[in-house]
């Protein structure tokens, strides 16, 4: 149903990167504080199962374990329940060299914890293998305080029940900072690419809907009221009418524009949809609905830098009323 990529279709890298701040609450905070102190805590459910990592709520019953459960300390040693060899670690993963992903049931636990196992190769990893924790040198109260697991040559100790633990530590961890970065390739699509390519030549274009004949600016590929593709490129502007606006008095981050400034909806001549832009070349308190303006570019920019008054008489209210 689709043609091959049209020449001139635009793409661009898009990176989303943010350090999320996670408050932990009592159970997770206690678990992660324990890791900082090289202590692995689980939580015992009313049915007697020991969950490691602990969950705040019993996955089996929904019961609140912070209220009815009890912290227990489990061993830093355990048994691999399943594994997978990762020959090419990806960004953010626990080890930068090839390693095994493992689920490990720590001694005293009834569930398995996901982490990395540092081993020389897949031949050195098996289900049932004994492993122990290698602690990170610097620990902050995070799952990465466990640097990884390593093979444990010692034979398994006889099973013993996990020991109760009060779950209290000095200076408990209450938040976790979790940076997350994801990289994307953004595709604005055919219609927007046509529009953006014209904009780079400092030409304003819209696209006409074959069904309702309205001219959409900027075009987004489909007429939103008819649900059909737009294909017919129509020049619009560069003059237009301010339909409505606001005066921005609050400085936006990353925006090198002094306040106050006017942010307006502008109905370009020939268009049936107002677009948004900044008004300059007139004191902000003299901008009004119906003001006639035109696009102004600065060299090298794709989008108009702003719109300025043309000096024409204001458009009558009736000329733009239906676009409010």
């Amino acid at each position, binding site marked *: 149903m689709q043609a091959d990529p049209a020449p001139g279709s635009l793409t661009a890298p898009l990176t989303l990167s943010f350090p*999320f701040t996670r*408050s932990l609450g*009592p159970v997770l905070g206690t678990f992660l504080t324990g890791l900082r102190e090289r202590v692995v805590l689980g939580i015992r459910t009313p049915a007697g199962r020991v969950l490691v990592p602990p969950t705040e*709520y019993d*996955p089996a019953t*929904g019961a609140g374990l912070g209220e009815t459960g009890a912290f227990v300390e489990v061993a830093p040693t355990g048994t691999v329940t399943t594994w997978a060899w990762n020959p090419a670690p990806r960004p953010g993963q626990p080890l930068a060299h090839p390693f095994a992903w493992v689920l490990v049931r720590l001694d005293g636990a009834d569930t398995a914890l996901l982490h990395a196992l540092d081993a020389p190769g897949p031949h050195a990893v098996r289900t049932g293998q004994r492993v122990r924790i290698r602690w990170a040198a610097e620990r902050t109260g995070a799952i990465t305080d466990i640097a990884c697991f390593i093979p444990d040559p010692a034979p398994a100790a006889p099973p013993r029940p996990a020991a109760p633990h009060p779950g209290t530590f000095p200076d408990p961890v209450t938040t976790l900072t979790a940076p997350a970065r994801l990289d994307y390739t953004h595709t604005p699509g055919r219609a927007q690419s046509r529009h953006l390519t014209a904009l780079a030549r400092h030409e304003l274009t819209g696209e006409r809907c074959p069904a309702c004949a309205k001219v959409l600016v900027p075009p987004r590929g489909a007429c939103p009221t008819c649900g059909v593709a737009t294909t017919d490129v129509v020049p619009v502007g560069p003059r237009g009418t301010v*339909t409505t606006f606001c005066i921005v008095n609050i400085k936006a981050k990353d925006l090198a524009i002094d306040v106050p400034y006017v*942010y307006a909806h502008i109905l370009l001549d020939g268009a049936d949809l107002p677009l948004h*832009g900044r008004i300059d070349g007139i004191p902000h308190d003299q901008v009004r609905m119906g003001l006639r303006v035109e696009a102004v570019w600065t060299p090298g920019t794709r989008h108009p830098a702003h719109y300025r008054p043309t000096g024409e008489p204001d458009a009558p209210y009736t000329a733009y009323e239906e676009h409010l």
Partner: protein
Amino acid sequence: MTKEPVAVTGIGQTRHAAARRDVSLPGLVREAARRALDDAGLDWPDVEAVVLGKAPDFFEGVMTPELCLADALGATGKPVLRVHTAGSVGGSTALVAASLVAARVHRTVLTVAYEKQSESNAMWALSLPVPFQPPLLAGAGGFFAPHVRAYIRRSGAPADTGALVAHKDRRNALLNPFAHLHEHDLTLEKVRSSPMLWDPIRYSETCPSSDGACAMVLTDRAGAARAPRPPAWLHGGAMRSEPTLFPGKYFVSPRAGRDCATDVYRQAGVTDPRHDIDVAELYVPFSWYEPMWLENLGFAEEGQGWRLTASGATALDGDLPVNPSGGVLSTNPIGASGMLRFAEAALQVRGLAGDHQVPGARRALGHAYGGGSQFFAMWLVGAEPPAT
């Protein structure tokens, strides 16, 4: 086959704050859900299905969070749905849950909506950079302010209408222990003289950014009969969507909102909303939206909504109290904001709204909207079961 009547027998919400640093994400949703179950006299095994709603996953940096919240919602072995309809999502989520009961797919459903905006920074998540697009010039208020100006132009409303609404809603919030903002010292003069951020919108006329959650238990007639406290009954519910931008889009009074209300009133047998509805909890993120929605929802003629506000009719002691909870202007965990409106409407007709109770409320409207004034969800609840 007629629909099963749907009753609201449990309502819970968290304490709302700019940052709930004392709880995890599971802990936040759980706080509301547990309170809703307690209100309904139920426990986790009584819940057959869970419907979860919130706004963009980027707010907390957790994709498809129903997966990692399943344990906290006691959902093992149950169906879980995750709804996302932008700002209206809290309302849409409740309506999806209600449809599960109405269709007799499930008898008792837990619905939960939340946002923990402090995990990221809501403005970051709302304005993720998009390549090729011009820089966002205005922020959240700047998106709405030109439409407010258009409303003022069309209606001739006096400039202080927005301040009246903001003062009223923030005063109502003082009666609501769950509300985020409790501005005891706020006066009308302080609202009027607060900084003009996005002219014509002033600082005190804007909503806060909150962490919070809301939950409700919806059930059938048999469930309502067992409930320990009076239920609210669903008399009508609807969703309507229209495109973000299109030629002739009427931002001041979008047709999707009008059509949605018309559908709800038809289902509920409401012919004169001003007369037939006792209290309305409307999604008003910027104060001027009260008069705009009053017109959009048929409580006032076009261009006359501000007169209703100015007359005091929408005050807690007026004849059409609007936002007795304090509204979005006082509490705004985005994904939960719509459900909080729906829940307040239900609390009112159950007579359980505490200090912000409207005496004798029998029918109440809950309203939510989102996106570019394009997604609408509403329900009308009553103290009596619907006629079947």
